[in-house]
Structures are given as C-alpha cells and as structure tokens.
C-alpha cells in the first residue's frame, strides 16, 4: 500500500501501444468485420442485414454448395496426404539424422530444408516444367529405371492432379517436420536412453517404445501447423493450376474458391458478402481444429513432457 504502487506506470501501455494498435486494426478488426459482413448483403444498392441468408445460399443453393463441398473435400484430401506422407517421412528423416556418430548431418539438414524457403510460385512452376510432357524430363528419368510407360501428364489429368499437387507441397515442406522432430529427438535426456539400453531395449524398439512417446507433443504441433497451413493454402494451386483449380475443379481448394468468390475471376464477379461468408466458414473450420488440438490433444500429451 505504498503510494508508489498507485502511480500509473505509463511506460507499460506506451510499450504495448504500437503493437496492439497495428495488430488490432489490421488483423483483429478485419477478422471481426468479415464475420459481421457475412450477415449482410446488398439490396437496391444499399447494405442490409440479411441474417443467415448468405449461409443458406452457400450450403443450400446447388451452384454454391456443390463448389463448396468439392473444395472442402479436396482440401481434406490435400491435408490427408500431408499427414500420411509428409509427417511420417519427416519423422523417419529426423530419426536417421539424430542417429549417433552420423557424419554430414549439417549438410543433409541444410539441403533437405532448401525447398521450404522458396516461394510456392517458384516451386509450382519448376515442377510444372519438370512434369511437362513437352520437355520430357520426367519421362527421361523414368526411362532410366525402365518405367517410362508409367508416365502421364499428371498435373493435367483429373484423376491424378490433386495427388500430384499434394505431393509437390509435401516435397516442399518435408524439411519443417524433419527439423522440429529432430530438435525434439535431440532434447531427449541422455539418461533416459541409457536407462532403456540398460534394460535391454535397443535399436528400433528403443525408437518405438522410448523415443516416439517422448516426441508426441512435437508431432501434435506439426499436425496442427499442417492443418492450419493446408486449410488456408492458395499460392501453389494458383501458380500451377490457375485460380479455377483445374482440370475441372479437381484441385480447387478453399483458398482458391475464396479468391474467386470475393475477388472475382474472369466472368465471375467478385462478391464481398459471399466471400465473407466463405471466409467465416473457413475461420470456424480452422478454429475448430486449433481448439481440438489445444483442449484435446495437447492436454493429454502434456504428461509426457519433462
């Protein structure tokens, strides 16, 4: 109760002010405004409150809902490929890199991480050229191992385009799970590993029974990062397949659909209100994923941490 406590410490708000103002004005306010805008529409040139009418159109109108469910399904598939290919491979690479007395680890780490620093635009075009039947790099390479007959213009085939795009994205981002898991493996205390070895647990069972449970929190973080990244992806598809998510909308995901809906593309006019509605739906999809992770997965994994 000394008078010192009662004086206002002006430096605290002053230090916080610039960050809070910019963050609130450019991020929080627009997010809330977008959620709000999804309940409005234009009638006779004026903005009027329409309740959930936009959502009824998005989910009920055949033209809109078909596009939406298609994009959501493609997005889920895109995410699934990342979870099944990128993250397990990242863990395997990290486990190999962290094996004792391995040489050149710094070189391998640095090289495998390089694609992750490049932009989607570059990566998209590079793979588009390599997979192009015009140039013939991919068929030539397949020919070397006698599999030339397997070549198809994968990015242009409806049946394979989405898988191909997903694998390109996996190729680009494999370095991130690798690094995070590698860091987690390095942070396992030596005593734990030695104690296990004293009990006769070695080799692969050492990994499965001792190390894997200890790195589960990192696997959880990677999964949620992948989820958030995948459900607002846009650039790679836009660069390789165009805003329409071709061929035949088979690579259309929520990001490209949002771009076309609110910004317009070719003959389709941009619609701020439909765009806001879709952005709101995406917001709740991502929020649900993040909350599910924070309350479900992370709490349960906590007890493994040191």
């Amino acid at each position, binding site marked *: 109760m000394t008078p010192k406590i009662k004086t206002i410490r002006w430096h605290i708000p002053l230090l916080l002010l610039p960050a809070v103002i910019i963050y609130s004005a450019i991020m929080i306010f627009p997010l809330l405004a977008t959620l709000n805008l999804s309940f409005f529409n234009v009638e006779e040139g004026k903005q009027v409150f329409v309740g959930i009418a936009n959502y009824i159109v998005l989910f009920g109108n055949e033209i809109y809902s078909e596009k939406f469910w298609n994009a959501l399904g493609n997005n889920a598939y895109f995410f699934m490929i990342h979870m099944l290919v990128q993250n397990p491979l990242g863990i395997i690479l990290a486990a190999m890199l962290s094996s004792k007395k*391995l040489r050149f680890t710094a070189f391998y780490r640095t090289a495998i991480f390089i694609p992750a620093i*490049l*932009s989607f635009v570059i990566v998209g075009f590079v793979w588009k050229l390599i997979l192009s039947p015009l140039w013939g790099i991919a068929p030539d390479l397949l020919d070397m191992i006698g599999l030339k007959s397997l070549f198809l213009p994968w990015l242009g085939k409806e049946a394979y385009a989405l898988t191909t795009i997903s694998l390109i994205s996996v190729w680009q981002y*494999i370095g991130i799970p690798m690094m*995070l898991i590698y860091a987690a493996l390095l942070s396992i205390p030596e005593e734990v590993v030695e104690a296990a070895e004293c009990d006769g647990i070695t080799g692969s069972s050492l990994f499965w029974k001792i190390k894997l449970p200890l790195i589960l929190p990192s696997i959880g973080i990677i999964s949620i990062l992948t989820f958030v990244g995948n459900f607002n992806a846009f650039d790679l598809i836009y660069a390789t397949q165009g805003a329409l998510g071709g061929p035949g909308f088979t690579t259309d995901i929520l990001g490209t659909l949002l771009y076309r809906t609110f910004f317009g593309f070719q003959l389709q006019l941009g619609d701020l209100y439909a765009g806001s509605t879709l952005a709101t739906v*995406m917001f709740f999809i991502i929020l649900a994923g993040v909350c599910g992770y924070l309350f479900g997965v992370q709490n349960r994994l906590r007890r493994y941490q040191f």
Partner: protein
Amino acid sequence: MHLDKKFSHIGRSIFIHTFLICFTILALFPMVIVIINSFKTRKGIFREPLSFPTAETFSIKGYETVITGGDFQLYFTNSFIVTSVSLFFILLFGAMASYALSEYRFKGNLFMGLFLAFGIMIPIRLGTVAILKLMVATGLVNTLTALILVYIAQGLPLCIFILTEFMKTVSDDLKNAGRIDGLSEYRILFTLVIPLIRPAMATVAVFSMIPIWNDLWFPLILASGEEVKTITLGAQNFIGQYLTNWNAVLAALSLAILPVVILYLIFSRQLIRGITSGAVK
C-alpha cells in the same frame, strides 16, 4: 559376435547415408535442372535437358529477355522495401510489447498475452475481405504501405510470443542495476535487454522474412499495379505471359531462386539453431 555387431553397425550406417543422399538429390535436383538449363539454347534445353551447358548449347538469351521484358529491378526493390521495413517494425514493436509482457506484472497481462497469441494460429488471410475494404477506404490500395501494414500485423504475434520467452531469461540484477543508475525503462530495454537477446531477434527476423518475401496472396489482392509489384507477383505474371518462351521462364525462375538460396546458406546456421533451440515450440 563382436565382429557381427560391427558389421551390422556399418550396414546400418550405409543404409542411412544412402537414404539421406537420395532425399538430398530429390530435394535439390529440380532447382539444379532449372538453373543449368537456363544457360542453354532452346535446342539444348529440349535435346539434352539433363546435361550441363556445353560450348555449343550455351546461351544467355533467356536472361536478356527477362531483363528487357519485365521490370525485375523494380520488383526486386519493391520486395526489398516491403520486407525490410516490415521486419524493422515487427522487431521494434514486437520487442517493446514483449518487454512490457515479460517484465511487468499488471492487470490484464495474461489476457494481453493470449490476445496477441491468437494471431499465431488464425491466418490473417481470413480477414482479407475487410482488409481490402479498409485499404480502399483509406486510399492505401496499390501502395507498398498497405502490404507493410498487413505484414507487420501478420508477423507480430509469433515475434511477441518468442521474444517474451527469451526476455524472461534476462537477469533481473542487470536491469535493477540499470534502474539504480537512473536509466529509464525505455533505455533499459534498448541498451541492456535488446543487445542480450540479439540471437533470438535474428531467429525471429529469419522466420518472419520468408513468408513476407514469398507471399503471393496480398500483393495479388492489395497491390497488383505495375509500380508496386513484388518479385513473387512479378515472377508469376512474367512467367504467365512468356509461358512458351522456355529460355525466359527458366531464366526468371533461376533469378528468383538464387538470391533466396544464397541468403539461406548465409543464415542457415542461425535458422537451424533457432528451430533446434526450441524457439518455435
């Protein structure tokens, strides 16, 4: 028995190296192919795409087209301005806010921390509709300022989150010594604390820089005018236009890859140490 074990150890080591080398090749070959072919004639590109340029196939025609066809110098300058100004303010405002959060106990400290951390997980892209409206209303559309503001807002949450953790490790004795010497709280932050957490600041800088430099979404929507194009958008438009001119496309891609890779090789130790020290947990 002992020999057996040794052999299996060598075998395992060979297996691991083979696997990692294969992966390294897979990671690097697309870029290498593009770069070596950018120095070839059109014939060379199509006849022997996998070989290095020879005296016969060497050509820099693609680079000439890029230099005359697109204003890459301007795009590069724009990207450089946007990235460096955004980074400066992310670090400055981020460090100030982190210091307030880590140093003082005040009402609403926890709430403020959570409020600022919200943006780590929720992508700023979802607010694009209202951001565009805001920028139109304030007349900032098609200016670099619009991009800079968006990227500062995008970068602050992670920056504050990481720096707060690091600032907690700075010793109290040092700061109190400064206070006894009569330094103001701002002086303590800028002359005592920030120099001590410089490695963390560098890590944050690298993490924030990559998504800003590579972003396509906001330049496409907020600043697509010729004068304010960033390199990512410029490359995208240029390649779209010259799609059948393979020399030009390969040269443009190489020019986009090289500076980033060189920068990465310079800072890779910092970046990797940042990740492995658990900065992004």
